[in-house]
Structure formats: structure tokens, C-alpha cells
């Protein structure tokens, strides 16, 4: 995914990105203060919000020209919280990730069921598959939300503050899994976060939204430390 001279926002320009390339196998942490446009950027990257100017290319195709049905096979978005749905079992929830691939009645083939199973295995949550989603803990539910996106088999996985409602150990577990998935399944992963230390530990690049001005810049993790991130994004 390549962004070239992109201006992002609803009506007025909120952010500008001169150049950004998102490659497979890497994890990108998106850092910025509240209200600076992290979610707006993610909405733009999944093609929900059109760019104000500039271009986003995916494998040489312009994002604005990709049909909705194809987008659902390219991008998956995990929200900060999944509260569970009454009477829905965890494996049924993951199976909904297969929606873009199933027939008119949503029938799951053997291949679909196998992919659902593998997605849960990757995250180590197969033993919870038959539980109702309302019976799971917040951490477990977030794992299932990621498993559903894995079952959706998208090249790009975006996560909007996926660790916001989790305790420290669950935050770490989720981010560890994301790093593993990026490497083992060769996915491009972009997540927004306020946990600076964890973001530095579990990402390859940081995409920073500055607290002043609107030029988004990306840095390799080695170049950054918590203090530098705070200076750029928050103070």
C-alpha cells in the first residue's frame, strides 16, 4: 500500500502524508493524541473515507476504484472493544469473517470451517470456541475479534486502539500475537495505540501524528525512544 501526497479529513484537511508505504510482514504503530485523527486515518486506509487529494495505491490499483466487495477481502478492521453478542458462540462469531467468501445463504464449506479453526489456533483460543461471546473476558473477546479478521483472510489488518480496554498482561499478549501474525502470515498490520512503551516494543515502524502541524511522519523503531515520541506527538 502506497500513500502519495495524501490529504485526509472529513471536509477540511486534518492530516497530510507526503509518502508512506505499508509493506507485508511489518507491524506499524499509529501514535497521536486524542482527537488528532488516528481513527480518521484508519477509516481512510480501509477505503471508507475518500481522500481529499492525493492517491492511495494497492498493488498499482487506486483505492478509490476498488469495489466494496473486493475491499472486504483486502482490509479488516478491529475495534477497540467487542462487548459480545447474546446467544452468539465464539466460533460462530469467527465464522462470520468468512462472509465475503460464502454463497448467498452464507453456507460454510469444509475449507471455510478449516480456516475458522486455523484462525483460532493461531491465536491459541480454540479451547474457548464453544463459549458464548458474552461469557468471555475482555482480553479473550479481543483475541476472537482478531481471529475473525484472520478468518476474513485480508492482506491488511487495521486495529483501532485494540488494547485500550485491556490490562497490562492482555495488552502484551495481544500485541505479541499481532507481531507473530505479521511475520508468520506475511500480513501488513497497522494499529493505533496510546501505550508508547509497548508500541515501541511490538512494532517495526511508528507512524506519528504530531501535536503541532498536520504532517504525518513515520520512523523506524530503532530511531525512536519514548521521550522522542512524546516530544513529537504530545508536547
Amino acid at each position, binding site marked *: 500500500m502506497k500513500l502519495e501526497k495524501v490529504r485526509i479529513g472529513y471536509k477540511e484537511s486534518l492530516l497530510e502524508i507526503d509518502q508512506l508505504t505499508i509493506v507485508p510482514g511489518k507491524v506499524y504503530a499509529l501514535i497521536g493524541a486524542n482527537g488528532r485523527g488516528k481513527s480518521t486515518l484508519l477509516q481512510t486506509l480501509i477505503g471508507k473515507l475518500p481522500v481529499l487529494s492525493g492517491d492511495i495505491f494497492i498493488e498499482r490499483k487506486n483505492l478509490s476504484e476498488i469495489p466494496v466487495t473486493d475491499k472486504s477481502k483486502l482490509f479488516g*478492521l478491529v475495534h477497540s472493544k467487542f462487548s459480545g453478542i447474546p*446467544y452468539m458462540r465464539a466460533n*460462530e462469531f469467527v465464522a462470520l469473517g468468512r462472509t465475503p467468501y460464502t454463497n448467498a*445463504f452464507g453456507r460454510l464449506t469444509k475449507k471455510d470451517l478449516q480456516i475458522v479453526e486455523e484462525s483460532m489456533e493461531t491465536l491459541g483460543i480454540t479451547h474457548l470456541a464453544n463459549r458464548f461471546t458474552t461469557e468471555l473476558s475482555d482480553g479473550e473477546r479481543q483475541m476472537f475479534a482478531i481471529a475473525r479478521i484472520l478468518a476474513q483472510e485480508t492482506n491488511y489488518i487495521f486495529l483501532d486502539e485494540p488494547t485500550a480496554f485491556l490490562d497490562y498482561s492482555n495488552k502484551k499478549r495481544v500485541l505479541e500475537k499481532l507481531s507473530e501474525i505479521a511475520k508468520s502470515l506475511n500480513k501488513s498490520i497497522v494499529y493505533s495505540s496510546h501505550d508508547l512503551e509497548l508500541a515501541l516494543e511490538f512494532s517495526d515502524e511508528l507512524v506519528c501524528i504530531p501535536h503541532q502541524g498536520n504532517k504525518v511522519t513515520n520512523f523506524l523503531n530503532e530511531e525512536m525512544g519514548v521521550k522522542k515520541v512524546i516530544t513529537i506527538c504530545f508536547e
Partner: protein
Amino acid sequence: MISKKHSLFLWLLLLVVLPSAFFLHFATGEISISWSTFQDAWFSFDSSNSEHLIIREFRTPRFLMACLAGAGLSVAGLMMQTLFNNPLAGPYILGINSGSSLFVALSLMTGFTIFKSDFGIVASALLGAFVFGLIILALSFRIKNGISLLLVGLMLGSFSGALVSVIQFLSEANSLKIFTMWAMGSLQSVQSDQLISIFGLFLLGVLGSFFLVKSLNSLVLGETEADQLGISIRRVRMLIIGCTALLTGLVTAFCGPIAFIGLAVPNLVKILFKTQDHRILMPASLLLGAVFLVSCDILVQIFATYVPLPINAVTSLIGAPMVIYFILKRLA
């Protein structure tokens, strides 16, 4: 994922409970008629035989109408609950029934008779359901909050209710009587020769609904997520409102506004089957809705010799405590 237990339960409903309800319904009429007479009425019909006429012109249409009305309202309620992500949604609460009532009132009691044919009431009820369905749909694009939308639906219902009262107040005695009889609700007003067209429209609504199961399953996650899964929300909303308005309008046209079934049956089905898979919920609501209304009508028939009960009252009298019981049982 449809489990064996679920499909067994569905087959049981279809093959055992519904036919049993049919026999009971047939057996509890005011005049007792033998089984052999029943068979003769269908296979060697004699138009001078009054018992044959009762079976052909009254009991069979009444049973079939109860099945279609129960099934249609339940399926409509299920779709509304999923679309608005709210277990309180239903064609009645969202004001779709009120649309039918208003248009029937306009057609029967004012000089404003757009539909003067025999199908006047039916066409008015259908048009009313569609118009109010479209109003709710248009509002749903602006009002994102489900509870606010339900409140708007209730207001819409009250508003049209008030308009109906004004029309009733100003109308003449004869048309007022016709409207009041219609509004009380009855499974008996359908005539046997109307059944085929009713069934045709019902089938259209139900088949349409079955083609929406995949979208409905995604909508359980909410519209944003369903959109992420490649579901065209705008198209699906239109289709759901269309099918719901067709089914609700059809039932309301012939049976009057029936309040309870569309709300209760889908909730009961979810509690019983413990799933959100519409490939189970849809046929289960269809069957349970039919069984539920037929059972209510059996009670109406049993009590008919002592006290004539309107079907609307019976559905709520039986259904409300049942739903409360299941909710309490689930919480315990």
C-alpha cells in the same frame, strides 16, 4: 453453524407440533364435525352440505390464515430486531401496523377512497405499511441511535392513532362499524378464494426474507461491521423494510393489527435455540409463529361458547407471561 440438535428441533416443530395443532384447531370448532366429513369436504365436496361448507369456507381458511399471519409477523419481527439491533423492535412498535390502520381508516371513513375495489382494505393496508416502512427507513438514515428510532416509531404510531381517532369521530356510523370490526382483528374475515393470492404474496415476502439470511447474520454485528464484511447496507435495509412491510401489511389487511407476535416470537426463538444464526432463527420463527397463533386461535374457539375473545387479546394474554417466564428462567 447448524447443529444436529437444532435441525432436529425444527423438524419436530414442522412434522409433529404443527400437524397436531391443525387437528386440535379443527376439532375445537363450535360445531363438532367428524373426521370423515372433513375428508369428504375436501375430496368429494357437496355444496348443499352445510358441514362441507363450514369446513371449506370457514375452518380451513381460518386455520391457514392463522398459520400465515403468525409466521409472517414473526419473520417480520425477527428482521426488524436484527436490522435495528434491538430486541424491542417489531413491526408494531416501529409504527408499520399504524400505517396500515391509518390508510384503512382513510379509505373506509373519508371521501378519500383511492381503492374502491373488493381489495380496497387490503390495498390500503399494504400501501400504509409500505409508506410507514419507508418513513422509518428514511428516518433511520438520520437517527443512528436504535432507542431513539424506536421512540420515533412509537410517536409515529401515536400520531397516526390520533389521526385515526379524529377520522373515527367525524365519520358516519356504518363505515365506523366496518373499521372497528377490522381493527379488533379476526382470523375469520378471509374468504377461501382470497387464500391463493394471500399465499402468493406471503411466499414472496418469506422467500425474499430467506434470501437475506446471510446479510442478517452479518447485521447482528452492527451495520459498520456488516459493511466491512462486504454487505451493501443500503440495499439490504431497503429489502428488509420491503419484505417486512409486505408481510405486515398483508397480515394486517386481513386480520387487523395484531400487536404481540412480531415482538415475542423472535425473542422466544432466540431464547429456545440460543443462537444468532438466521438460517435457524428464520425457519424457527416461521414455524413457531404459525404454531403460536394457531394455538391462540384454538383457545379462542374453546372459549367461544362462553365468551367471544378477540384474537389480539389472546395473543398478549398467553404470550406476555410466557416471555416473562423464559426471561426469568434464563436469568435464574
